[in-house]
């Protein structure tokens, strides 16, 4: 698997509110390739188009031009729920990844069906429950003993950990993480970061992770890209990334864009 081209984005162009005074080019002729096993971290200022990029890969929105090719299949016009058979996603908002009125095991059962057609079988069976329990142990949060608890009762950190597990335990071809630690307090964010690292390694997932935290972007993954104004303005491969520091990244950004860091840019640290 290692080395095969898993995701290919060709000349992706997306504009919002086209032809109005609010027109906004979110992605501008963006190209990106992910090989199997890649773990790419994505940084960039607010409004750079990072979330739009994730949404275009997942099929939540469609590009105006350009192709999304996953595992050799052109998926540019395939609806989100069909692509989801190959894609796992965790959102920034811990409330977004789970169903609050349903129990932990029911949520896992929903996620379990990502790769299989849904039938009139029971979603939670004895066998699956054992499997879910085993998977939850990876999180070390004791959730395996609370299978029948409603997810709405969990803390933000617990919900995000569960979302991460739900997105990954069925081994998607591609894992998309969009600032999935940004809404958490520092301790919880560290926990989720650590779990992310462990889970990506354990399941050997090809991953694209957006983060606001430069240090996190440097600590995780084998490649790094920096986005601005809908384009990738800087890329570091495995060797280059190892030599990078937060200071170097900031000066790189300044050099390329030739702008002093606004207060917004400072958020990047």
């Amino acid at each position, binding site marked *: 698997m290692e080395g095969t081209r898993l995701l290919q984005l060709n000349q992706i162009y997306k504009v919002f509110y086209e032809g109005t005074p609010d027109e906004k080019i979110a992605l501008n002729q963006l190209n990106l390739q992910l090989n199997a096993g890649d773990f790419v971290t994505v940084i960039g200022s607010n409004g750079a188009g990072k979330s739009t990029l994730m949404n275009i890969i997942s099929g939540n929105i469609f590009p105006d031009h350009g192709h999304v090719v996953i595992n050799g299949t052109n998926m540019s016009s395939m609806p989100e729920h069909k692509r*989801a058979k190959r894609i796992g996603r965790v959102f920034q908002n811990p409330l977004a990844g789970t169903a609050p009125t*349903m129990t932990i095991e029911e949520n896992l059962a*929903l996620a379990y069906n990502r790769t299989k057609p849904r039938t*009139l079988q029971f979603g939670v069976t004895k066998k699956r429950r054992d499997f879910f329990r085993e998977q939850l142990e990876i999180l070390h949060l004791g959730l395996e003993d609370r299978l029948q608890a409603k997810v709405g009762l969990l803390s933000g950190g617990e919900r995000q950990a569960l979302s991460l597990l739900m997105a990954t335990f069925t081994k998607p071809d591609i894992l998309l993480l969009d600032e999935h630690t940004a809404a958490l307090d520092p301790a919880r964010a560290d926990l989720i970061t650590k779990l992310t690292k462990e889970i990506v390694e354990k399941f050997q997932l090809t991953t694209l992770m957006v983060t606001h935290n430069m240090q996190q972007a440097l600590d995780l993954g084998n490649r790094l890209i920096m986005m601005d104004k809908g384009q990738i303005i800087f890329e570091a491969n495995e060797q280059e990334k190892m030599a990078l520091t937060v200071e170097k990244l900031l000066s790189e950004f300044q050099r390329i864009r030739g702008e002093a860091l606004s207060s917004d840019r400072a958020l990047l640290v």
Partner: protein
Amino acid sequence: MFTALFGSVEVGVIYAIMALGVYLSFRILDFPDLTVDGSFVTGGATAAVLIVSGVSPVLATAAGLGAGFLAGCMTGILNTKGKINPILSGILMMIALYSINLRIMDKPNIPLLAEETLMTQITSWWQGLGIDSLMEGLLSSVGLGNFIPATWGIFGVMLVLTFVIKKLVDLFLKTEIGLSLRAVGDNTGMVRSFSANTDWLKVLGLGIANALVALSGALVAQYNGFSDVGMGIGMIVIGLASVIIGEAVIGNATIVRATLAVLIGAILYRLIVTLALRVEFLETGDMKLITAIIVIFALVVPKLVDKQKAKSRKKKRAEQLGAASANGGNQVAAAKSDL
């Protein structure tokens, strides 16, 4: 009095099936579906027309259920494919169904009193069992001889049917499809990211919800002995009233409990209306108004109670804090006096 109350429980059990449908759309799918007012009649109309033309009542009732399923699916398609908002999709279907129901019946009212219906079949089968005379003896012996309902058969059979349907709904909501249906109402974006076709699920869910509503309509038409084009007016509010009253009394912690709450809510609703109509100055025509008031009460009162609770909790806390700081002040004073 007893006869009137018994009658309302009997009717409540039949309407409970409709309320289960409303529960599915309103609570499970989070879709306030107004199709109900039309699909209830569609069920009654379809069954009535078929019964009059000689089809067996069981088949006719099943056909009514099927017609309701189609109506619900149409609402779902208007919403998901036509991108029309939920309330408007329901209203459009409701209005369209009014004409469709008239077409099905070919006139505003079809009497069934002279026909063989599910109800007449149940009654004659039941009389063969001799349970009614048993109950009569029982009630007479405890001095309730005046309060004997004509038959227990319809009540008994409808109660069993309603419970079977409740159980089926409970089980269905635990299947893989059922789970994803619940998740659509809970977090649509999330189920889609787990490869569920949420459009199709909404269509299916609304189809099932309106199938139950139409089944209830088909049974009510046979129970009342006629199908009328106006018999669905306000049905959605009655369904909502049942769901809300049931939740207030029984709660909705689990699915099994929530569906039980709907059944009990539907019966309680009928009892409340029956009792309200006994008040001197109220007339039958006031029923819709009473229903609306019940729903408003059921919606507003729990909120007021919560608010009151929160208020008194805050007050208590403030008092505790006040007391604590007062104590603190005393301690400082005491410490000073020690000096």
